[in-house]
């Protein structure tokens, strides 16, 4: 367990931002990651549960807002959420942890194997965060590449597009295991294609097509290998799985 020196449950965003100014302060949504980390240095837990950031609602331009503290299971159960996102949220954590883990925590955690993050990427996710300087929206892909953009800030929501067709495939040791590599593709209502991969970099990544082909971009990846899959294997999986999801969305 984490060594916790102080617990704070702010009632407003302003209080939360003030709390974050304390040395060792960490933001907790559900606590699945922070609480289970075996930190030796004491942390100050800033629990966001009192901020009312757990709504899931339609917002402008037909986009859907997922509140930062909405639990993954709430996302799974919400009929407003596109089926592919619900399924990715379901797969992200087992039931017990899925009732605790939050959308904001998932974004902040930036797990390289997160199929949910890959799915949010193809749904053009924008992450809204608040700092003392104010509120701003950051593209999820950009945030994953440069997490420092979140420094001293609090994620308040993630908004996504809900239109189009999405397909996801994965390879794992078992059917319920976290993927070694997962590929998610979406064709939006404008006919534009998106592709994202998990398990091929230090975070899930969007793959940008060159001349309408994703192959070269995928083959240029250098996935970090581990005991579940070598660099070579992950790259090959990425090619195969990307091809499948792109075929599926047409």
């Amino acid at each position, binding site marked *: *367990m*984490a*060594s*916790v*020196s*102080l*617990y*704070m*449950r702010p009632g407003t965003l302003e209080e939360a931002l003030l*709390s974050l100014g304390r040395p060792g302060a960490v933001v*907790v949504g559900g*606590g*699945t990651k922070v*609480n*289970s980390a*075996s930190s*030796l240095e004491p942390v100050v*837990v800033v*629990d966001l*549960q009192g901020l009312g950031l757990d709504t899931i609602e339609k917002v402008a331009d037909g986009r859907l807002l997922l509140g930062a503290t909405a*639990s993954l*299971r709430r996302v799974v159960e919400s009929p407003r959420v596109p089926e592919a996102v619900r399924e990715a949220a*379901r797969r992200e*954590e*087992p*039931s*017990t*942890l*899925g*009732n*605790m883990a939050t959308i904001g925590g998932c974004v902040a955690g930036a797990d390289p194997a997160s199929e949910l993050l890959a799915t949010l990427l193809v749904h053009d996710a924008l992450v809204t965060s608040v700092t003392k300087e104010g509120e701003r929206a950051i593209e999820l892909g950009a945030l994953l590449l440069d997490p420092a953009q979140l420094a001293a800030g609090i994620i308040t929501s993630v908004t996504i597009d809900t239109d189009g067709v999405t397909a996801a495939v994965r*390879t*794992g*040791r*078992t*059917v*319920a*295991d*976290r993927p*070694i590599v997962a590929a998610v593709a979406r064709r939006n209502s404008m006919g534009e294609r998106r592709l994202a991969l998990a398990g091929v970099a230090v975070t899930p990544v969007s793959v940008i097509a060159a001349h309408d082909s994703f192959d070269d971009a995928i083959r240029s990846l250098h996935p970090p290998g*581990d*005991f*579940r*899959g*070598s660099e070579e*294997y992950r790259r*090959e*999986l990425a090619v*195969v*799985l990307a091809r499948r999801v792109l075929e599926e969305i047409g």
Partner: protein
Amino acid sequence: METTNVDVEIVLNGKRLQAGCAPGETLLSLLRRNGCFSVRYGSETGETGAAAVLLDGRLVSSDVLLAVQAHGHEVTTLESLSGARDELHPIQAAFVESGALQSGYSAGAMVLCTKALLDRCPDPSDAQIRDALSGILDRETGYAKVVDAVHRAAALLRGEKPEPMEPVFVDRLTGEHEPGQDRTVHDEGTTDAVRESGALPRLVRSPEVPHGAVVGKPEKKVDSVRLVKGHPAFTDDIDLRGMLYAKVLRSPHAHARIVAIDDSAALALPGVHAVLHHLNTPRVKYASGGQSWPNPQPWDQVSFDDKVRHVGDRVAAVAAETPGIADEACRRIEVTYEVLPAVFDEVEAISPGAPVIHDEPDTLGIYDAPRNVSHHIEGQTVTDAQLEEAFGRAERVFEETFHVHQVQHTPIEPHVAIGWLDEDDRLVLRSSTQVPFHVRRMLAPLVGLPVKDIRVIKPRLGGGFGSKQEMLIEDIVAHLVLATRRPVRLELTRAEEFAGTRTRHAQTISIKTGVDREGHLLAQDVRVVSNTGAYGTHGFTVNSVSGQHGLSMYNCPAKRYRCDVAYTNRPVAGAFRGYGAPQAFFALESQMDDIATALGMDPIELRRRNWVRSGDPLDIVPRLGERGGVEEIAPEDLPHVTSCGLEECVEQGRRAVGWSRRTDPAWKRPWRRPSIRRGIGCAIAIQGSGIPDIDMGACSLKMNDDGSFNLLFGATDLGTGADTVLAQIAAEVLGSRVEDIVVYASDTDLTPFDVGAYASSTTYISGMAVKKAAQAVRQRIAVRAARLIGTGDGGAVRPEDVELHDRRAWAPDGRSVSLEDVALNALHTEDQEQIMAVASHVSDDSPPPFVAQFAEVEVDVDTGQVNVTKLVTAVDCGFPINPVTASGQVEGCMAQALGYALCEELVLDERGRVVNDRLGPYWIMRADDMPATEVLLVETMEPSGPFGAKSVAEVPMDGIAPAVRNAILDATGVSIGSIPFTPERVWRALRAS
């Protein structure tokens, strides 16, 4: 709210609870402090689900939730459902009825999970149930009966009455058929039973087996109510005044000498009461394996050594006022190491130039310490020359090398022990152990106490699978109790479970097999290099069993088995369900399919031409093992197969899995899914039933005033249902009911000796001890009943004519007297006596159970992913005393074996550190991982077992991995010689082909 020390207010089970706690305290800790013992520790990271509770109606893991996060919320634990003494909530009743609880360690979580699901979804699908259960890892059941329990609970809550949990009878397919049974197999691949529920045991009855009133019935487990109510039944479910908390400092190095230890900073920490290490603890050599006296050598361990031999090896131990202080004290112990070269691979370890792991002068009995060979094992049925001659006669000779890997047991309850000094200054240890009597005897010299001054109590265990057949923490607790004279508790973390307990032996197995033109085996030569890790412990016996069981499967006139057991700097290997047989059968059964492929034969037909049958000798068995090494042995002195249902098992399994689809190209290559290849594989296996002439079980049986009985034995139920099975045996003999047999086990002060739970011995060995004791009690009851009945009208009755049934003693003419009246007469009225008996049992036989296992797979040839879509196990366990608990054992074993085949693997980095010492990275099968499973129990009559019973709990571990491997071969034509079948391994094999 902002404070360093927090006042937490929650609504706990409908009542307001205010408590002060540290900000880092988990909700799990707070709940257990407040008497909610149904919430249990499984890990620090929430994956096991053992600590699951409802937070505002949602299932969450309280071990990864801060107590203060629950402030202002409603928390529900299993205790909320506990009503009057005999009352069960419908969900609890469903779990009892379905036999869904084995150890019951996670019962609270499962019941609450069910409640949360059914509250929002009154009639869930299988998929919804498995998704809901995905957060609760169950290492014991295989989930089939848990899913059934949820369906039953849903039906009960809807006001429906579900069908009782009773066996489905399946017609025999071989030999004499028993027509007219109520539900039968129809088409290949499907049965009525399958359509009804995957959890119901399918029973293929044998006319040879006499069926009783209690044995053979799906009696509810004797401990099920206690477990489903979440009562404090487990080792850690007590609080002792003044208890100290122990933590162990473990080695960060794979191989190093401890040059210096400075414990002054640790001892100076307020709240620290003792720091123990090699400089202040007696150096007494021992072997940690829980085995009968004298423990096999080498005795290569001491409680704390001046050398560490694997990452996670013990360095020191601390007892302190809180776990946090103990942790901090461990960090403050300054250890100076001289790091030494390390070796992890078993073949490299015994090669020239490898670092010597056991160079200490005081370990006796290492076979070849300079070469890192802890044991050398060999046995053969013919001379070397005769073996070569047999190979010379063979039409074809096949030589292959296989590798099986290191995996960990992962019982959800970790190793935990609590010790204290009683009022007579005797040392009492309450421990989660499979071998309480062995622990008592082995511990005595380590702490300098006589055996009589040690008492070991085994409460309910939360799973073991062999990892608790070792003395791994009890000596640490004992040392600390004696040093502090305070109660001391030590519970291992999940990471310590992986690195600091025990694992399955990895093996490199080379097999050379000669066959004639028709596929008859002529010669088998098996050479094994086994990896015991840093210490020898079970190295001799596990690796002997590899040869004993592996080379007993088939008749073959010339057999040889040789094994070097290698020390390495890996975490230590030990006993693990199957005990060497799964390793052997992976290699042997894989090669059988390769031979069949080469000969163009059906793999089952090749096996049929060779497998042992009733009356066949088990000729390698006496040449190996504890009492092995016998070179010359007369044929009549060889053990023989005394019961065998293998033919029926194979036919049942073949039909259930749909074996004929192997030749259907449309099924094997589904045209809509071009990257998919389908296949079906099979493997057969045998195990033993106890260790002949060594394993001893004993019990005492005492009659009470009301005609009930106290049954006390030393056998240890790990969750297997052994307590229930032994009660059924007693009830059957005594004409009583299971609920009138009060079971207590085990406690070295109170219960008779038993070797403990291992080697598949409990039903076969301890069960026979119970039967003998019950027969002796029955005899006394008959004498007294004859006298009581004979005093009335109708004349005298001879005791030998008295029968017991329906809780009464009956004369042939129908007169009877109740057992209660017999007991009252014996205890209070006439020629008073305590009717009781003590009995022991040892067998000179170890009849093998047989299993036929089948796997259906889909292989994605582009990614290498193997998806197992169906598993079938047909097992001959003799007469299943309780078909529900027996089938539950098989289901759980299949899940564990499937993990062995597909995904479980203890991975070390180049420095010997476990990379995946957490559940998740170390993946065990979840409810939503498991394929359809089917279990068939094929009855046979084993003459040496109680009511015809043999063992059941280990043999299903043996054939799943080779069955999956052979299914991959059938699907793709590719032979793979190593497990697990991870996607990359399969992908590379496909590419290489």
